């Protein structure tokens, strides 16, 4: 999987690059408008991460150029400008998704995978870990032959774990990803505990070979 990151903040660029390489992506980078435009127009990527405010031009112009040339490059806009009109405009021009800075890297990964999955052929999008399979298109979780009945939130949570098995998933990033804008840091985040408990119980009942482990009160890990 090949990803192009167009971002002018070098430190942020390096962070994303390092993180995504660890997730086995091939990464190319560009840190200004001309080089970003050139790479986006000349090579094919599975996903382009596009900053809007770039030296030399707007990321939205790159997006427009891509659409005018009918190049089907999935684009995820990353912007510090969490303004409504930017988001609307970006999605109207044809971006696949929009993520406001700052974000959790886990959330970035989830968005990238979702974009890639939507643009991939049917069947390639199944997630597999041990004896568990997830079909994101139908929101199905299958253990061996049997399907587990997760409710909406439980499925969303479990999907995040399945994106990155064996990796630490922080409570805060899980909650922000699943419960979205309706939570903030001031809320009591312990309610996720009962959700995890339900998921674990359902996994055990279905004889899954995986389990969710708590990691020092910081988060959880799918093992």
């Amino acid at each position: 999987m090949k990803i192009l990151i167009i971002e002018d903040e070098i430190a942020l660029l390096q962070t994303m690059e390092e993180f995504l390489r660890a997730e086995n992506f091939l990464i190319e980078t560009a840190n200004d408008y001309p080089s970003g435009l050139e790479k986006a127009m000349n090579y094919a990527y599975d996903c382009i991460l596009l900053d809007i405010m770039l030296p030399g031009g707007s990321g939205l112009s790159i997006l427009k150029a891509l659409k005018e040339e009918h190049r089907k490059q999935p684009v995820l806009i990353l912007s510090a400008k969490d303004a409504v009109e930017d988001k609307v405009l970006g999605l109207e021009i044809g971006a696949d998704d929009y993520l406001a800075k700052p974000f959790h890297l886990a959330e970035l990964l989830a968005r990238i995978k979702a974009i890639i999955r939507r643009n991939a052929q049917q069947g390639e999008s199944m997630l597999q870990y041990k004896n568990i399979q997830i079909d994101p298109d139908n929101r199905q979780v299958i253990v061996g032959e049997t399907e587990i009945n997760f409710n909406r939130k439980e499925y969303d949570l479990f999907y995040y774990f399945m994106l990155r098995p064996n990796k630490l998933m922080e409570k805060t990033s899980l909650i922000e990803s699943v419960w979205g804008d309706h939570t903030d840091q001031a809320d009591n985040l312990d309610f996720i505990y009962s959700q995890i408990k339900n998921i674990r119980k359902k996994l055990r009942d279905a004889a899954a070979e995986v389990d969710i482990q708590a990691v020092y009160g910081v988060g959880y890990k799918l093992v």
Partner: protein
Amino acid sequence: MAVSIKYYTNRFLAFTILIIMAIWALLFYAFLMDEVYDNVDDGLKNQKIEIIREAYNNPSIIEDNKVYGINQFRILPTQDHKDLDKNHFSREFMYMPYDEEDEPYRILRTGFYSKDGKAYQLEIRTSTVEEDDYLINLAISLLVLYLVIVLSILVINYFVMSRAWKPFKQILANLSLYRFGHAKSFTPVQTQVKEFEELNTRVLQMIDRNEQVFEGQKRFLENASHELQTPLAITIGKLDLILQDDHLTEQQLVKIADAKQSLHRMVALNKSLLMLSRIDNNQYSQIEDVNFNERMKRLLDDFEDMIQYKGIQVDLEETGTFSSRCNLELVDILLSNLLRNAIKHNVQDGTIAISMDSQKLQIANSSQSGALNPDYIFQRFHKGNQDSQSSGLGLSIVQSILEKYTALHISYQYEDGLQIFRIYQ
């Protein structure tokens, strides 16, 4: 005590006119009396000449006029002396049968020598002005004049001033309609009066300057928040990378997670500030008919896990549909801030009672604290007693949103241990 300008000048006018009229009355009186006596005295002197001439021709009148009779003079023998023929005028009271009392007379005393060289004193009298009556009459008529003038001034002032100050009142009324951040909310008043025109211009200039400062502040807030996003994104990203390291000890892991959590609080604060400035900058301009009942139910669904975790009992009572023309996103922010507060400040196994009808929407929740101070709760960064985690911006965002929609109002109340927030139209 402040008095209207209509009456403000009146007391000065009344006082000044009184003094002017008093001085005028004194002068008038003095001049008039002077002129009267002058005339009377001239008459008396004339009479004197005629009497002396007659006495010379016809000495018998000297004997016939020893007392005042119909001739209004008398002649008395006297000692000869140096100033015999000098004129002495005096004013005396004498009995007048017609009035049955003493009346003022002007009297000329002088002397002459008869044909045979004897000295006589001549007294001629004539009835003159009754000065005290005259004074009283003058005073009364002046008083009447004074009252009429003052009353006229009052009446004229009242009507003329009311008319003249109309633009001023209009400017005041328009000023009270002026809302900060809306330069257009003050309409200048058309007027022919130079001073008011100047007032208009000055007010407009002042508003312009204020708006500029306000704009600058808003832009500063927005820019500062934006500029913070990138360093925050970098820091959080780097911490994320460190957290992926399997070799970390528990202590290190917890510390990094704590640091990250603090950064996220900063992100949340930043987001709230951005949202406030965006609301103030009218960036949520798309307006539609929003069904609050529907939004509320959707939010309750979103918050369900948190509500369940706290064991909170939610009662939703709908007797009508509360709807208004608003921005959908802002309504969601408004309701979710209120709802989040109702959950966050609730007690374990508490209650949230929501009732909605066409006129009002009410959220009442049980809470850990007593009555809040309604003067402060909507202020930015005002925090209640027990939460160190909250940004203190939730309710001020609510306030900012409602300021955009003047048809909607919010009230707060503490009743029977319940915190009650009510939105009504």
